[in-house]
């Protein structure tokens, strides 16, 4: 089979199956969270029922442009994932991801509701917090492989994590922000009641919220694949290994979510930057010394 065909299959698989995988992960998350709180928890497929219901409700939107902006958000996230699975430039993926986040910011700003505006500005602060670590991840991959191409990063002899343990930990750390998990769920929370209602999603109802949720699922699958990229190598046996590590990381995220309280945005900013610089930064510095 030609490599182009494999790439196309990968992209189609991502576009078709990512929402299902993402929704299922969400369901597992809610179930495990409930068990951690000694509750029974909702059925595993609850996220799908939720989205199904949202699509059927009356659409009340404050501004027409919100729907368009949210669709752009969805499109750019899908593009990010598609590019990732096509094995293109990882740096480009990350930039498209940031562009997508900008659309989300605008989608909640246009409504001019105070809650969603505060949520949106907090989202921006979150971006400032996690972006250095994401960029350093790309740089780390480049230093190890001498290329930004994902297809070449994925086909190493030894897993990348061997050279990038610090970068890996920093990336998992910022994953908590990206997945909107406590203690960093400051722009919007999965849990009930927050001081700013639903934050960035306050003014999104019905179909718009459904789009937002599906986009989150796409994004989560992409982010977890990034985690998998640290593990995967030439050996086909590394694939189950990558899945195991991804599952473990996801579990750790749920655990952190359930045993920590929300912190102030400035603490988050300081904490993430210190961790990113200390772990990822020193990791990259050492790599550069070795490369010389």
């Amino acid at each position: 089979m030609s490599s182009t065909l494999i790439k196309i299959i990968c992209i189609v698989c991502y576009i078709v199956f990512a929402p299902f995988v993402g929704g299922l992960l969400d369901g597992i998350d809610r179930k495990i969270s409930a068990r951690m709180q000694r509750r029974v928890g909702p059925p595993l497929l609850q996220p799908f029922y939720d989205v199904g219901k949202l699509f059927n409700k009356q659409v009340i939107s404050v501004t027409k442009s919100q729907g368009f902006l949210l669709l752009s958000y969805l499109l750019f996230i899908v593009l990010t994932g598609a590019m990732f699975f096509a094995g293109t430039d990882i740096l480009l993926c990350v930039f498209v991801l940031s562009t997508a986040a900008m659309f989300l910011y605008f989608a909640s700003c246009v409504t001019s509701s105070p809650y969603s505006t505060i949520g949106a500005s907090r989202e921006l602060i979150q971006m400032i917090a996690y972006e250095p670590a994401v960029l350093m991840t790309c740089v780390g991959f480049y230093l190890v492989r001498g290329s930004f191409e994902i297809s070449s990063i994925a086909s190493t002899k030894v897993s990348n994590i061997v050279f990038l343990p610090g970068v890996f930990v920093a990336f998992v750390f910022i994953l908590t922000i990206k997945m909107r998990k406590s203690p960093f769920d400051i722009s919007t929370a999965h849990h009930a009641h927050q001081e700013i209602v639903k934050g960035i999603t306050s003014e999104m109802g019905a179909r718009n919220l459904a789009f937002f949720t599906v986009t989150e699922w796409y994004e989560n699958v992409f982010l977890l694949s990034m985690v998998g990229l640290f593990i995967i190598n030439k050996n086909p046996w590394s694939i189950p290994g990558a899945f195991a590590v991804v599952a473990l990381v996801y579990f750790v995220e749920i655990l952190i979510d359930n045993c920590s309280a929300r912190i102030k945005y400035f603490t988050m900013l300081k904490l993430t930057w210190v961790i990113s610089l200390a772990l990822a930064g020193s990791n990259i510095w050492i790599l550069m010394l070795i490369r010389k």
Partner: protein
Amino acid sequence: MYKVKKSPWVLHYDGSSCNGCDIEVLACLTPVYDAERFGIVNTGDPMQADILLITGGINSQNEAVVKQLYDQMPRPKVVVAVGVCACTGGIFKDCYNILGGADKVIPVDIYVPGCAARPQAIIDGIVQAVELFEKRLEKHKAYVKKEKEA
């Protein structure tokens, strides 16, 4: 009843209650009663809610607020009055500022009696509300379809 394949999202509004019923509403979400096993989520956002859970009576100050919350909820929607205060005005009925139960300002579908209403009764009320919600959803779908054709 275990497998209710729906996702009722609840908006809880506290009128002029004594807070007894509100505590019971929150008790529904604790591990003992775990309302989330039916997919019930307590959102604080009227734009995302399906069921308006209202406790306490209506007074002249919160009348407009309740109306607005109801209007902000997208169709289909169901209103549940929890506790006798929300049903009729209850113990505060004769107070100079109380207008009466929630049905004085918005159409109430399900009345959950009790002072304070027990968590079991509240969950039962919500489950009934979900059934009603399903019926209205079907109606709403038919309505949307007709609109599209016209």
